[in-house]
């Protein structure tokens, strides 16, 4: 069974195509959004999603979030005494989604389409595939997030003929794609983005200003806050960020060391603090328009995707930049997952979609490092020679020829880069190859380097020595951000050993985690009250009577809702 997954920085979703339309699947807590947060509980068992997110406040040392930003790096996150890479944490989220889908479909799920930011590079894409493998999922296709959103939008407006821009501001990444829709064809013309710009940054900006202004009261160094305070402030900032979406002012309250610090903020202040972030939104739009050779007034529609586009300041900016209002007919949180579900149906050749074809582009150039002679025995190296141009339609295959620069040279060294800068040091190294050539005078030996970029956005390199016709299909290796096959197998085994809670216990875990988080955020008498309720609930759970547990859980939830409502 093939499913579509949106593996997001903040939330992840899973969907499938049933009854001729894409549908999202609810998790054990009855939600379609599963927070991309992973933790271990006090017994060392794994927690994924809502309960883990609650525990970010109460147990920051045992919990990890926003790890998508570290895909394709060697970074490790500490959860208690264990260390995990971003791929492994993502795999845990994927596994949890997979279980939700299996429970819903009543059949095993072993293949998936996973969305990635269009601007994800080769290393990050490989890391995403590795995460799928670690979760026991064969990744049938990596789909660019804005393309997925375009698919969802395009399927819904199939008969239309239009050119629209997808503005995808998620939790951690920003993507822009320009898409043309005609005769059932969905064509991406250009994509651009910023891998380090998302809703989290707006939240962190609030945190930064808050900590800066209240550093004395809190007695901390605002640039190096304690982890627990940071997590707590982040959560409050997130709430304030959302509140400012609908009301002109909001108050941020943070409890730290038995004291409450409150800070009032207006929507206008928030916008002013985020000015630098807002300016960054214009550039990828400009790039995409330039590459598509379009003026913004030639676009028929602006489609907003990603939870962060709910912020009024973002909508305002979009309206200003394009001189008109964006489309509002889609749910920004769900569009990408729905698009992934559509793609799963396309891949499975669902008859309902047999007239639909989608084409995509690769958003960045790729090439090799070369040297050039700048005088007698003088060379300049570090020059970038692109082979695939940015925003070419994929799949694509191109060849360039390079030759030797020294007499009796026996080897050609080909570092492979991705990026737009003429100097390789400003681009991203993807890996390197070495090719042996016959000893000849300089310039007489040459190689043809063929770059093939597939539908997943992955690169394959083939080198042919021109004089001998010897062909080598080479695997790019030596990139520290990519796990080797053996390493993936080893980690797969290790992950399978991790203790997990049975699915029917998860809901209780989540309520307990939430109670603990609210306890951490409260003071004095209220804490005692929460403790009492917690003890009671734990006692009920221990008795293992389903009906009784469900009843007690509802009571506890009502109690917690009441606290949060009155605060």
């Amino acid at each position, binding site marked *: 069974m093939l499913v579509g997954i949106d593996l997001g920085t903040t939330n992840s979703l899973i969907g499938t195509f049933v009854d001729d339309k894409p549908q999202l699947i609810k998790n054990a807590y009855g939600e379609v959004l599963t927070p991309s947060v992973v933790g271990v509980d006090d017994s060392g068992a794994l927690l994924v999603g809502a309960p883990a997110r609650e525990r970010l406040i109460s147990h920051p040392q045992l919990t990890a979030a926003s790890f998508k*930003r570290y895909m394709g790096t*060697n*970074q490790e996150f500490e959860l208690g005494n264990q260390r995990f890479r971003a791929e492994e944490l993502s795999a845990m989220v994927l596994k949890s989604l997979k279980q939700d889908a299996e429970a819903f479909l009543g059949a095993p799920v072993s293949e998936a389409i996973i969305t990635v930011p269009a601007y994800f590079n080769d290393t990050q894409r490989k890391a995403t595939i590795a995460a799928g493998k670690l979760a026991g999922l064969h990744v049938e296709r990596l789909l660019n997030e804005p393309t997925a959103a375009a698919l969802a939008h395009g399927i819904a407006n199939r008969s239309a003929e239009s050119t629209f821009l997808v503005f995808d501001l998620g939790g951690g990444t920003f993507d822009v794609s320009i898409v043309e829709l*005609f*005769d059932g*064809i969905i064509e991406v013309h250009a994509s651009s983005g*910023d*891998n*380090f*710009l998302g809703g989290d*940054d707006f939240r*962190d900006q609030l*945190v*930064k200003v808050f900590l800066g202004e209240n550093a004395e009261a809190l007695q901390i160094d605002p640039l190096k806050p304690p*982890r627990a305070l*940071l997590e707590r402030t982040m959560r409050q900032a997130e709430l304030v960020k959302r509140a400012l979406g609908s009301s002109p002012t909001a108050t941020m309250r943070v409890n730290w060391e038995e004291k409450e610090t409150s800070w009032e903020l207006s929507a206008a202040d928030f916008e002013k603090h985020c000015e630098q972030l807002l*300016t*960054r939104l214009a*550039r990828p*739009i*400009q*790039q995409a328009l330039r590459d598509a*050779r379009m003026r*913004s*007034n030639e676009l028929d529609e602006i489609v907003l995707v990603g939870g962060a586009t709910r912020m009024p300041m973002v909508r305002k900016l979009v309206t*200003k930049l*394009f001189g008109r209002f964006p489309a509002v007919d889609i749910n920004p949180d769900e569009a990408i997952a729905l698009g992934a579900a559509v793609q799963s149906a396309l891949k499975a050749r669902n008859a309902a979609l047999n007239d639909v*074809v989608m*084409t995509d582009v690769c958003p960045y150039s790729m090439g090799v*490092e*070369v*040297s*050039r*002679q*700048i005088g007698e025995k003088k060379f*300049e*190296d570090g*020059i970038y020679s692109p082979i695939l141009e940015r925003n070419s*339609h*994929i*799949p*694509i295959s191109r*060849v*360039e*020829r*390079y*030759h*030797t620069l*020294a007499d009796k*040279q026996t*080897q*050609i*060294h080909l570092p492979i880069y991705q990026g737009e*800068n*003429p100097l390789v040091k400003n681009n991203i*190294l993807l890996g390197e190859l070495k090719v042996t050539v016959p000893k000849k005078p300089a*310039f007489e030996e*040459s190689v043809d380097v063929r770059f093939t970029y*597939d539908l997943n956005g992955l690169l394959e390199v083939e080198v042919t020595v021109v004089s001998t016709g010897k062909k080598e299909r080479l695997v790019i290796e030596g990139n*520290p951000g990519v796990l080797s096959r053996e390493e993936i197998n080893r980690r797969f085994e290790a992950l399978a050993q991790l203790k997990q809670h049975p699915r029917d216990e998860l809901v209780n875990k989540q309520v307990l985690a939430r109670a603990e988080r609210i306890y951490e955020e409260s003071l004095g008498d209220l804490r005692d009250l929460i403790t009492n309720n917690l003890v009671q609930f734990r006692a009920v759970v221990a008795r293992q009577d389903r009906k009784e547990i469900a009843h007690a859980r509802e009571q506890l939830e009502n109690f917690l809702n009441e606290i949060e409502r009155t605060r």
Partner: protein
Amino acid sequence: MNLSIWDVLGIAATRNVREIKRAYATQLRVTSPEDDPAGYMKLRDAYEAAKDYARHAEDTGPDEIFSIEHPDSNEESNDETNEESSDEPAPEAEVRSRPRPSPQRQAFQELDALLSEGKLDDFLVKVQTILEAQTFSTLDEQNDFIGEVAQLVLNSEIEDTEWRGRLAEVLGARERDNIFAEGSEYWYAYSELLHSYSEMKSAATIAHAQTQEDIGARPGYLHVYHVLTAPFDSERLMALTRSQTYHRLAEIIVERSRTDPAIVIPPENRDWWERTAMAGQHRPAAEPAAKNTSSSSSGFPGWMIWILGMLILNGIRMCNDASPTRTTSQEQTRLLLEAVPSARDLTPEDRLTVRRLASCDTQTRVALFSLGYKRREATDTSGTANTGSPRAQFHLDENDPAVASLLAKCKPPP
């Protein structure tokens, strides 16, 4: 099997874009990228070529690729400058022109006046004020404004690199990042500004490093300083936080910038640096064993790993048999266009050459390009001349009789 693009698309040659699209859509259902990648690549090339064919047919004037104003034709370009506001809408102005007497019009008149009076510093201030006042608010308006300013400055032939660099900075330029599509009307004027900007930036970086006697000479210092003080680039900044060496240097520079007014880190960058540091996102890792591609430090004999980045001009391009409309001369034009912005030290003579080229008719221009390339190829294969990537340099030797006779058809240098 050598099919024409029209065979691939399954229609007779046409300039009707709608018909081409429909044919493409029909073929795409049979040769989708999913099922038949090779077939799709062929179809794609044919489709692009057919669209090019249709587009060129639409062109009425001379080719748009080289619509640079000759410096002599000031009159004409002034018209263009003011078209924003002129009462009769110019053909391409319908988009931006507003019927009301616009603040935009006034802005340009003031800028023009400042420039002709030689009040260069005031000019910069004025541009800054206009940008901050958001007189031009939509992306299209902003782009047009920036392009017009670039054009204005190009036409006024101000040779002060430093000043032009500062102007680029005010306009929000990013190194080597032309906001205009290649071949569009402002592309050249803007790329000229970008050169000055790069020159200004690198001169400033080197001058600065010399003042930092303790760490200025450390490996990586120039790079780190440059990234921190350049316009915001998240990828490059993030790279600094992931390497111990770079991170250490960056922390020192950020710290010093608090007390040293000579170190100017743009607020975007500082903001980003502090915020990500606070959020615990700086996780510098020890570098892997030196991955240095330069021969001197890699331990290999130098000649073993040197390679020459020579792109053979008629190098193999996949499926180019399917795109007969892309002629060699067009290809060369494209390469030249790429060559101009990437040459790091474009001399005043080079600039002059390009301006002169802009003044002659298409045929002469293409002939000159072909000649330029033939000459260069000749020197390349002899292996003696200053070679390298063809995108790097393009010289026309006026002493060459063939070149001279062609150049005679262009306007003389001012």
